[in-house]
Each structure stands twice: as structure tokens, then as C-alpha cells.
């Protein structure tokens, strides 16, 4: 198991390297575009262009340019935006990350609890009315776009019902957990619920399917023939085996969301997280910022998938390499 973890982490590092090379090539070596103009943004003066050329060593061969870029990104961390002059990319991302982490962690907790309970209740009440009800709610939350749901929530809690039902609710924004945990939770409550709604639906539906499949497996019949209680069969055998799927799904969703995929929720609720930052970069065509965000996002996706694989091996002994 230990060797498996080491191997998996090494391969994660290699994947990260490959991604950084690819991102670099896409941004700086696409044929027919002038990278200096791209970095400097729209309508940059020749002076700025020259400055960019020197800073990024654009007259040097590609591998050197790659190293310079990585040096600015990771070691000196002084890559600067030319659109919003003076903004250093990395500190900006580092400042935004806790907001995204707070949003996604809280939402993940909610959707795991709701999704797993929903899936289990639906699966163990097959054929009764509660099962199709949960499945309908699931498909409904999946189908509602996050930005629409977010806007509706905002409209209700901040405007229409603010005076009557939600006077206790702050007017958007973010408070760090370190400065005031209660305010932190209050500010994030509706963003959490909005983001969790979509994923709760997905997880409940997936888990229900997995559980129903598992309950038809031979080993469940064996468990029943052993004289175990129905409850034990459901939890210790069926759910335990179904969790394998949920964990891998969760790792990928979680990694992507931390990496910036919670963009819509962040933008709608004015949370200045990484997704929001990416959105800013995209609307301003701020290339260094976009590149920073992409690298950051890729890092979390790769990290999450490494953690998932390790957890997977822990949960499913068949995956472990026999050494």
C-alpha cells in the first residue's frame, strides 16, 4: 500500500509537469500569434511589448522560455498582470483560494450527507412513493442551472424577502473563518446550499443506482444467507461496495470545483474566489492571470485524482498492487 501511494504521487508530479508544458505551449507557442501581444493584452504600446519581450525572454529558445515562465510563476511568484497593471497573479490566486476552499468544502459536506442519505432512502424504499419523489427532486436540482438558482436565491433572500424572512442575512461578500467563524458560515450559507443542490441530486441518483445494483449481487445473497440483519447487509456490504464509485466521483468533482469550476456560483454570489478570478481573466483577456488560474486548477484536479486513487485502493483491495 505504501509503495502504491509513493508511485501514485510520483505519477501525479509527472502529470503536473506535462500539464505545465502543455499550458505553456498553448499560450506561448501557438503558431501565428505574437506571445508578447497576448501577454500584454489588447492595445498595448510598443514600449510595453518590448518590456514583455525582455521579461519573458521571448527571443530565447522555447525550453529556456518555459523555465523563465515557471520561475516567475512558482519561484519568484512575481508574474504580473498587464491588464490590471501592478496586480501580481500568484498572490492574487493565493488570496482567492481560501474563499473557494471554504465554498467547496462546505458545499461538499452538505451534498455528501444529503446525497448519500437520499440515495440510501430511495434505494431501500424502492417501489414506494418516496423513491420516485427523491429521484424527481434529484433530477430537478440537476437540471436547474446554478446561475439561475443563485440569482433566484439572491432575489429572494436579498430583495423580496430580505426584510421579512432574512434580515439576519449579510449582503453578500466573504468573511474569513479566522476572523469570525459565525459570520463566515452565515455569508456562505446560501452559496453552499446553491452549489450543493446540483451535486446532491447527482450523488443521490448515482448512489441509488449503485445500491440497487449491489443489492442484486451474489455476495448480498450470501450475506443474507449468513443470517445478517437487513440493516447490516445494507450498510456493511452494499453501501461499502457502492462507496467506491461515490469516492471516485467525489474526488473528481471536488478537485474540479476547487480548481475553479465553482465559477458560476462564485460570480453570482460575488465571492472573489478562484473561479471568479478566472472569470475576470477571461473577460479581460488577461493572459497571465488565465494561465495562473489554469495551472492552479490543474494542480488541484491532479492532486484530487491522486488522492482518489489512493482512497480507491484503500476501499477496494482488488486495485492494490500485490508486491
Amino acid at each position, binding site marked *: 500500500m505504501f509503495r502504491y501511494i509513493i508511485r501514485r504521487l510520483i505519477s501525479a508530479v509527472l502529470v503536473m509537469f506535462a500539464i505545465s508544458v502543455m499550458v505553456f505551449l498553448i499560450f506561448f507557442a501557438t503558431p501565428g500569434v505574437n506571445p508578447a501581444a497576448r501577454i500584454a493584452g489588447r492595445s498595448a504600446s510598443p514600449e510595453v511589448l518590448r518590456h514583455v519581450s525582455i521579461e519573458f525572454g521571448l527571443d530565447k529558445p522555447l525550453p529556456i522560455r518555459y523555465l523563465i515562465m515557471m520561475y516567475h510563476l512558482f519561484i519568484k511568484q512575481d508574474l504580473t498582470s498587464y491588464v490590471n497593471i501592478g496586480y501580481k497573479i500568484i498572490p492574487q490566486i493565493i488570496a482567492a483560494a481560501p474563499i473557494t476552499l471554504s465554498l467547496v468544502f462546505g458545499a461538499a459536506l452538505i451534498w455528501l450527507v444529503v446525497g448519500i442519505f437520499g440515495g440510501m432512502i430511495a434505494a431501500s424504499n424502492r*417501489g414506494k412513493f418516496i423513491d420516485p419523489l427523491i429521484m424527481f427532486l434529484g433530477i430537478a436540482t440537476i437540471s436547474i442551472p446554478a446561475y439561475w438558482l443563485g440569482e433566484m436565491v439572491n432575489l429572494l433572500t436579498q430583495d423580496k424577502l430580505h426584510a421579512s424572512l432574512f434580515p439576519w442575512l449579510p449582503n453578500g461578500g466573504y468573511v474569513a473563518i479566522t476572523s469570525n467563524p459565525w459570520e463566515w458560515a452565515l455569508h456562505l450559507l446560501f452559496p453552499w446550499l446553491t452549489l450543493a443542490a446540483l451535486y446532491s441530486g447527482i450523488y443521490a441518483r448515482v448512489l441509488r443506482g449503485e445500491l440497487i445494483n449491489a*443489492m442484486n*449481487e*451474489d*455476495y448480498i*445473497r*450470501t*450475506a*443474507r*444467507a*449468513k*443470517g*445478517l*440483519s*437487513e440493516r*447490516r447487509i445494507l450498510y*456493511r*456490504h452494499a453501501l*461499502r*461496495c457502492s462507496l*467506491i464509485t461515490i469516492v471516485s466521483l467525489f474526488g473528481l468533482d471536488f478537485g474540479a470545483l476547487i480548481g475553479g469550476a465553482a465559477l458560476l456560483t462564485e460570480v453570482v454570489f460575488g465571492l472573489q474566489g478562484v473561479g471568479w478570478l478566472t472569470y475576470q481573466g477571461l473577460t479581460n483577456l488577461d493572459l497571465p492571470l488565465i494561465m495562473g488560474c489554469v495551472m492552479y486548477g490543474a494542480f488541484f484536479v491532479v492532486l484530487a485524482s491522486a488522492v482518489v486513487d489512493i482512497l480507491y485502493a484503500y*476501499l*477496494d*483491495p*482488488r486495485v492494490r498492487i*500485490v508486491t
Partner: protein
Amino acid sequence: MRDLKVSFATRQGVVRAVDGLSFDVGPKEVLGIVGESGSGKSVAMYSILGLVRDANVEISGSVKFQGREILGLSDKEMQSVRGGEVGMIFQDPMTALTPVYTVGWQLVEQLRAHNDMTKQEARERARELLAEVGIPDPKSRLHHYPHEFSGGMRQRVVIAMALSCNPKLLIADEPTTALDVTTQAQILDLMERLQERHGSSIVIITHDMGVIAEIADRVIVMYAGRPAEIGPELDVVRSPRHPYTWGLLGAVPRADVKNRRLVTIPGNAVSPLAVPEGCAFAARCPHKMAICDERPPLRGAHQHLDACWLTDEQRLAIRSVATTRGES
């Protein structure tokens, strides 16, 4: 078991999987149930323990275990019977164990479900059980996962599990079908030895007359959910009375016959959706008569019963013709 009937309501119609099955199993007796696949053997046995989980199933009849009616007990009431008084072995050892737990864990789980034991005691007993079913190095094998065992070894684990609580009755659903021939023989040997040691009764399901000849004391031949013939093993194998049994015995590849040709019974097994009112085998029977449209009763002498309208004289004539023609 008295007049067990199991049917499933399906979109295509009612499937009569088991249609009036009755038998008794005495202490230490080995009863074989034989029939082509689809003849309702598994469904009959699973319904005894309430293991048929289908919302559209209808089960009727009576199953008495040690004088107590167990058909229709709730899952809760059934728990002590399942795995405690009645052990069960399944056809496919590859999928019968939960893949994510070690075999030791799974044995301990069952032991502790039925006995008041500490983890240590259960672990020790699990080790003994693995040793008893012939798994080498049982102490370290306790920590292995099912996928780390071969098919034969897994079936031994399943047998150990079924026997772990000293059941009075062991139900084995085609325990050797998924295994290769040498392993089959070993597993049958093992079951015979354990049966002598533990003194459990066994109901063994198979579609292989060879297995029956090896292990069974008494045989039920099933066709389309109905018993075609019941009798002591020697009688049924040496002097079968039902044309379907004749066909089955012809279909056994015999090791002692050099030029062995797999004899099959002509025609397809009757669709369980359209089992006729009369004799179920009539459509495939070479000796069909007019009366076969009526359901033949199960009758005979000396514990050897069969459900066929043929008279003794007719059977004698048919079988002597077959022997003179040479049965190889």
C-alpha cells in the same frame, strides 16, 4: 416441504418456476435435486430461506424445519435460521463473497452474528474452519481478500462459512458447476467428509447426474418446476422410470465409455411461461400418448415415485429395445 409453489408475475405472463414440490429430508441424509437449468431448482431452495427477493413473486405451500413452519417468516425471524441452522453454498464462488473484506472478516462476521463470541474466539474458530476445509496456511489466509484465492479455494471458504455455525441442514446450489473437473471432485470429497463429521443433512442441487451418483442418498428429478421422479439414488440411476430421467442419464458423459458422445434430449426445455396443463415433458417425450394431456400423478412403490402415464409393461418394452440397440 409440502406442495411448494413459486411463481413470478412478469410482463410476459406468469412464470411458474416451482409447481408443486414436496419432499422430506431426514437427519444426515443427502438429497440430490437434479434437472436442466431453468427447472426451478434454485428458486425452490432459495424460497425456503426467503432469499427470493422479487416484488412480483408469489410463494405458497409449507416448509417445516424441525417441526416449525419457516415459509413466510419475516427477515428478522429468519435470521437465526439462515446461516445458523441452515447453511447455504452457492454456485459461483467467484462472486459469492463480498470483495472488499478479508475472508477472515467475513467468517468472523457470521460467527459473531450467531454466537456469543469475542473477536479473538471468532478469529480462532475461523482459522480452525479454514484448516478443516483444507486451506493451507489458514492463519495467514484469514487476512487475504477473496480475489486472492482460486475458484476452488473460494468455494472452500464458502463451505467453511456455511458450516461455521454447525447447521443441521446444508443447501448446496450447484456447488461444483463453476469449477474445473479435478476441483469438482475435491470439493465433492470435502463435502462428503464434512457431512460425515458434522452430521448435517444436505440438499444438493445439480444438473449433473455424475454428482448425484457420487454423493446423494436420494434423488429428485425436476422438470419445469415439477418433480418428475423421486427415489433412492441407486434405484433412480440404475432403473430410472421417467422418460425425462432416461434422457438425463443418457446425457451424462460417462468416463467408462471410450467413444463418448454427448447425448442430448431432443427439443428445448419447455418455456416456463407456457407449461402445459398436462405432463410438462410431453412435447419432448418420444413416448407421448393421448393421456399425457392430463397431468400425471406422482406414484410408485418402495419410495420410488414418478409422474408418468406409462405402464410398467410399456417401460420394460421401451428399455429393452434401447438396450438391444446398444446404448453407447
